[in-house]
């Protein structure tokens, strides 16, 4: 669907994007991850046709974005970081204008707008002034704008940034529902977001691709090296020794000890999940587990380690 090959973009002497290559397949949701200033927005702007680039190639449906911009722009719906909203228009006026801009045939217009309004759940505010809408609604109008013209591809740049948790959940739900019949690229610097909606992630840092993988692979990578936090009632010395005997455990550290109750941090270097083994060991030692928690099981650590290494 989208092929990006050795994409380079300079601003004077700085290289915002320095040789990025990846593909986006039809129907998948691609997470585009990276810290602020990594080149996410630049790359997305390039795909959307906003910016030109220094070298490399970007192809959408086999068409080059520089050579056939009109064609590629037609198949892309783009929500930039700052939604491009005219605050002095009502939602419906604004979306009608976008229809004009994207040359949606007059006949399809009414039906399409009704569908989009329903899809992003803004039918109830369609006659209100955009300036008077909440941030979450503005973001939805932004997404609606991207959906006008029925593009196959949606590019959403940080769609949840600046929203409150409820709004974030709503937007994520919306993205999941859109994923059914769109190819979507979402950029984010928040992992949980990517985790919750994406099939695959591309992690970029300092203008380069740091990792490309599907979520399973990443998780596997995560489970190789992790920590477990355990709180229990019983003899601290016996438990520490017993846990050290489990294969893969490299270190046990006492975090907290208050009479009977202690808290340990277990460092693990293994591809297997050893939490069940810990449980059986504790049963054997007759020490009841009060709490067992896997630490660093999220993508954050991976992200940090990858971005640090590269």
């Amino acid at each position, binding site marked *: 669907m989208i092929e990006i090959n050795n994409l*380079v973009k*300079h601003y004077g*002497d700085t*290289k915002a994007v320095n040789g990025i290559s990846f593909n986006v397949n039809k129907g998948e949701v691609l997470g585009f991850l990276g810290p602020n200033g990594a080149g996410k927005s630049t790359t997305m702007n390039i795909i959307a046709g906003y910016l*030109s*680039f*220094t*070298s490399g190639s970007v192809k959408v449906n086999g068409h080059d974005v520089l050579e056939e911009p009109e064609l590629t722009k037609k198949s892309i719906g783009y929500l930039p970081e700052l939604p491009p909203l005219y605050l*002095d228009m*009502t939602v419906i006026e604004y979306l009608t204008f976008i229809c004009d801009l994207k040359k949606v045939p007059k006949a399809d217009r009414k039906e399409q707008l009704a569908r989009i309004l329903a899809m992003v759940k803004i039918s109830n505010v369609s*006659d*209100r*002034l955009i300036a*008077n809408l909440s941030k979450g609604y503005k973001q939805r109008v932004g997404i609606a704008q991207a959906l006008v013209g029925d593009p196959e591809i949606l590019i959403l740049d940080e769609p949840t940034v600046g929203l409150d948790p409820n709004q974030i959940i709503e937007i994520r739900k919306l993205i999941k529902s859109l994923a059914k019949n769109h190819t979507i690229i979402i950029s984010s610097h928040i992992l949980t977001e990517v985790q919750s909606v994406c099939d695959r992630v591309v992690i970029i840092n300092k203008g380069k691709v740091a990792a490309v993988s599907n979520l399973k692979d990443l998780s596997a990578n995560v489970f190789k090296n992790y920590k477990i936090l355990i709180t229990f009632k019983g003899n601290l010395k016996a438990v520490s020794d017993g846990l050290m005997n489990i294969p893969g455990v490299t270190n046990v550290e006492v975090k907290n000890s208050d009479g009977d109750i202690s808290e340990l941090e277990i460092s693990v270097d293994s591809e297997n999940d050893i939490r069940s083994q810990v449980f059986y060991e504790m049963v054997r030692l007759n020490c009841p587990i009060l709490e067992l928690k896997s630490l660093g099981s999220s993508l954050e650590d991976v992200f940090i380690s990858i971005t640090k290494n590269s």
Partner: protein
Amino acid sequence: MSKNSKKTDSRFKSLKTFSTVSCIIVIAIAIIFNVLLDQVLAPYLTFDLSATKQNSITPEFKEFVDGLPSDTKVRIVGLFERPDDISGSAMQYVIPMLDNLVKESDGKISVEYVDIEKNPAIVTELDPEGLVNFEANTFVLNCNSKNFVVTPAMCFMIDEYYLAQYNQIKVIENMAQVTFANAIANLTNPNHAKAYFLSGLNEDSHEYVDVILSSLCVDSVNLPVSDSFTVPDDCEILFILGINQDLSEKVAFEIKEYLQRGGKLFVAVSYTQDNAYIDFKNLNDVLHDMNINIDPYVICENDTSYMLDGMGLESYLDVTSEYSSLLTDNSRVRASYMRPVREYDNPKTYINVAPVLQTSPNCVVGTEREQITANFTQLNAGMYATYTGMENPPEVYVFGTNDFTNDAWLSQNGGVTDPNARFTKEVIKSLLNVDNTVNISSQPIANYSLNSGKVTANSIVVITFFLIVIIPLAFIVIAAFVYNKRKNL
């Protein structure tokens, strides 16, 4: 790194080059295209759609220009910088007309604009001998090292009544083509008649008359009085204007001789502080040959419809019906401190005398101190005399006022376009044997007056209220309404 970036930045560079070059090319093409258009096609792409065709050369003028010898080179120099906005100024009737004149003249006429203050060298260039007094904001026509000055005031006529009523100048007639055509005719005509002005008698200056003569292709020459005074043979007209001393007997004798030869004489003497007590015995002696006498009194008008001041010393004059052709339009001539001119008692019957300018029937004559006549009577301020039954008879116009020829008076009253000056011009023309003037009609200026019956004070108030209160207010109300409504959507 820098090497690498140079190489990879080639797209940026080529885009930048393309952008810059395309901008430069578009600007360059636009300028070159317009310059070419301006230089080559401008005359063909200009259309005079105006009803009066103010600035298009009239067919008569075109015919006149075509009739000039093909090697004629008339250089018209505007002694000022060409203004960008000429609307509303007198130049709006001149500059575009001159542009058209150049286009129509086949290279015979050229026009340029030189600021005389910035470029004083133009004076010596045009007039190496320093004969003409150049002033800024005038035009100089130069041909065969002769110069002719045209002032903007010469290029239009104003509405006298409107000026008196509203104290605003309203141009009613475009004279630009007439004036320039006359000037060109004057410069290009080799057969100039000569007019002599009697000088050395403490007389007033007569530059405006010079201008009038010049427009008739007549050169002005001063003829000083002396013991060896004679009137030259080439004298077409002799002027005795605004003298404040009487002639000597010798001079009077020579002028009599001149008249007997069929000479043309133009006399204008006012009642002034300097000559109030001079009775001009020798001048009257000359005039007696034509059966005319100038009295040493001042005319005092008593008819209020003629009076222009409280004393009746300045008043309107009527042109007698016999000479009404000397004043072509409905304007009126007027004068101040006039001496009465009357028929003398010369018994010769071949002398034909007729009044030209008359007062109302309610006049008295007097000096500044006392009233001379008791009863109201009609007086003459100007008379004409000639001999009948004679080939090439002498002709004389005698005026008891110099307000038709005096610089001081004319300069304050509209110069050569003043009715008095135009009257003078017609008088001179009638005295001249040859008519070198080009007859080109002036053009009326579009009249933007409203129908006075429809423009009442009430209708103006209603329209004013509607235009500058209702309409703007309506927009403001709509603005407030829209703002309020949308604000809360």
